[in-house]
């Protein structure tokens, strides 16, 4: 069965450079048999809410079809904050939306669960797509994104995404973000470095070394901290949305973690930018996600009446660290494969086009492991990512362009130029989410969403580089629309108006009222929001 590490290492050395072996399985069969989302027991059908009848990951459905953390009595007498726009989430999308809304004249409250900037954005390595090459076009970016998502994405959203791409890059530079230049290129009048992301037909991936998200978040964080009109609330996760008697969103119940008490944030428009759900560890997979990625926004939006889509589709990043175990969850950036690093199985052979879409590459790796061609080391299984082969072809590339990767190997105790990484698929992204229109509005008046919490842009598989683009494009669109919506009619008779009907729905379907969500922190965070609220009393 599985090849032990020393034997696999010898096979890799003996065969280098590894020969390509065409996958005998066509893509549909490969996905059907080996992609984790296709294991049918993993899915349930939603029984309550706007998207009842749709399939959904079981782990997510358990959170979605649950009762709220708060009752009227819990928020009576809570301090009230007022704003035009409430932004929930302090990652990339939240910062962009807050900046845009504030510059449009809105008084903005930005509430974040951890600390401003703590998010998946800061961890993004590979880059951001924008069709700026002379041989590239918005149409090609549009078609590549649709094809990678298996043609189920919302075309209007994808068109908005790719059309705003070049302007989003200009906006980021204006906020002080740097980008890599093509070799020998000048800062003024030169060319940006472009690489081809997996599944693309043109070199379209722009980057800042291999910590593009960190560079972006640094600029966005400083901009947000300095922007007049934004009030920042660190350590204030949202427990529930507030609604008015017409079903309009009117803000949120926040939980002040420092004080252990609820705070009501009333707003004319509320924008959720709470990110993804990797910390639910669907199907037991390790995750590359940030600690706060616990699906809070999905839960809140769904209970308030928003529709969800593609909730049965998660993204597994092909190259998570398999060994050493203490680094589980860390990713080797797709930049490595985009630069030419091969994937090699225990027999020393390549087994997939490394630049196929992520779902295909991940399924191919899981197939190698399942069929006994994986590599076992200290009880974990994976395949090799051949960084020494890449370094041999392009000397210096690891130290100069793949800085984070080289650092990662150092922390794992080996030299990436000498030894390959042992990698395996790792839960990375939520492809689906809250359904929005091209302005970021949901079906609930006064409620908007931006970033990973939304669905529709990526279909059933997200391309590398479209997540960073999405958060800028839809952060700007959503922030602008929220500022406009806040100038309209204000919510009235504000409270937890939507909960009575929600609970009737749960009861009608025979679902228990015992589970209360969102969970805010992963189970290993050892946090109970209900108990914490008692702390202040």
């Amino acid at each position, binding site marked *: 069965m599985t090849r032990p590490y020393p034997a696999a290492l010898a096979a890799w050395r003996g065969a280098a450079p590894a020969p390509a072996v065409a996958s005998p399985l066509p893509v549909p069969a490969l996905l059907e048999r080996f992609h984790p989302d296709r294991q049918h027991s993993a899915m349930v059908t939603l029984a309550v809410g706007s998207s009842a009848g749709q399939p959904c990951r079981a782990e997510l459905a358990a959170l979605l079809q649950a009762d709220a953390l708060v009752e009227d009595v819990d928020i009576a007498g809570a301090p009230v904050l007022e704003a035009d726009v409430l932004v929930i989430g302090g990652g990339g999308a939240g910062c962009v939306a807050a900046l845009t809304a504030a510059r449009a004249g809105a008084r903005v409250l930005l509430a974040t669960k951890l600390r401003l900037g703590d998010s998946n954005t800061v961890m993004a390595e590979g880059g951001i797509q924008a069709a700026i090459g002379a041989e590239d076009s918005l149409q090609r970016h549009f078609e590549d994104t649709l094809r990678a998502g298996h043609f189920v994405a919302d*075309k209007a959203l994808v068109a908005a995404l790719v059309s705003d791409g070049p302007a989003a890059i200009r906006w980021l530079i204006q906020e002080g973000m740097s980008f890599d230049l093509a070799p020998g290129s000048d*800062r003024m009048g030169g060319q940006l470095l472009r690489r081809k992301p997996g599944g693309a037909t043109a070199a379209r991936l722009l980057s800042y070394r291999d910590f593009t998200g960190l560079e972006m978040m640094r600029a966005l964080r400083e901009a947000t901290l300095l922007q007049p009109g934004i009030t920042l609330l660190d350590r204030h996760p949202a427990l529930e949305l507030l609604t008015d008697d017409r079903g309009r969103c009117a803000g949120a119940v926040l939980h002040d973690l420092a004080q252990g008490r609820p705070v009501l944030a009333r707003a004319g428009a509320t924008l959720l930018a709470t990110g993804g759900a990797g910390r639910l560890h669907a199907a037991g997979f390790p995750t590359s996600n940030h600690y706060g990625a616990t699906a809070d926004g999905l839960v809140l939006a769904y209970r308030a009446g928003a529709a969800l889509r593609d909730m049965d589709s998660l993204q597994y990043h092909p190259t998570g660290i398999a060994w050493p175990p203490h680094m589980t969850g860390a990713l080797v950036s797709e930049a490595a494969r985009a630069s030419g690093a091969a994937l090699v199985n225990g027999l020393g052979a390549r087994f997939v086009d490394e630049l196929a879409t992520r779902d295909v590459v991940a399924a191919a790796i899981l197939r190698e492991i399942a069929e006994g061609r994986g590599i076992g080391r200290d009880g974990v299984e994976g395949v090799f990512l051949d960084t020494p082969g890449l370094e041999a072809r392009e000397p210096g590339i690891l130290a100069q362009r793949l800085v984070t990767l080289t650092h990662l190997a150092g922390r794992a105790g080996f030299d990436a130029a000498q030894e390959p990484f042992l990698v395996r698929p790792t839960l990375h992204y939520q492809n689906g989410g809250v359904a929005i229109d091209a302005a970021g509005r949901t079906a609930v008046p006064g409620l908007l969403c931006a970033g990973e919490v939304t669905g529709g842009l990526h279909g059933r598989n997200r391309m590398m580089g479209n997540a960073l683009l999405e958060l800028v494009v839809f952060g700007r669109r959503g922030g602008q629309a929220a500022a406009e919506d806040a100038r309209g009619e204000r919510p009235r008779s504000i409270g937890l108006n939507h909960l009575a009907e929600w609970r009737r729905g749960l009861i009608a379907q025979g679902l228990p009222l015992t589970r209360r969500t969102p969970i805010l922190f992963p189970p290993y965070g050892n946090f109970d929001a209900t108990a914490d609220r008692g702390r202040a009393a």
Partner: protein
Amino acid sequence: MTEPGSEAPPEIAFTFDGQPIRARAGATLLQAWIAAGLPLTENVGCMGQGVCGACRVLVRRPGERLAGTALACEMQAEAGMQVSFVDHFPARRAHAYDLHALTDSWTALEQIDRVFPEARHCRHCGGCDHACPKGIAVQRMVTLAAEGQAFAAAALFDHCVLCNLCVAACPEHIDPAHLGQFVRRMTAALTLRPADLIARLREIEQGGQPIDPEAPGANPAAAPSP
């Protein structure tokens, strides 16, 4: 993570925020905290990538007089260590500027002086260098920035992870982390003008990049009609 039947890894004992903790050898400080079942609602972020600067800790090993700083997601636990989280705090005073208003690069030095006047008063105590968990030459960056050597200063802050420990360490309230971002942002915003991006933006503004949602490539190839 241990293989069935394999030897359990050895345990080590250390102290974290006053709690005696036993951890398996090789665990990071953050993994050890979680494995001990302690609540974790702050001082945590990227969980091991070492890019968010949230899990800042003070660490003192047995026999050491002074504590050093580290990121809890990166440093492995060692026997006898004394560790404590450094809670997040924002910079004491805002060094306010509007990047969009800084348009004249001839006056970059004056702009640095005006926004960060303390930078010229660096007393070269080295506190910031000791505090940085990423080994950045923070003090050198401050000196270069105060001299107006913006690109050189910006390059030194390439690996900053926003932990703000240098801000805590500076007795002159220079706020080196924010000064570092200021020079980085200023140099990008004032000098990065890629010709390919500018050409594409012009093309789009002139209506030259239409999107056809019904182009053959925008739909599944040879999809059988239902």
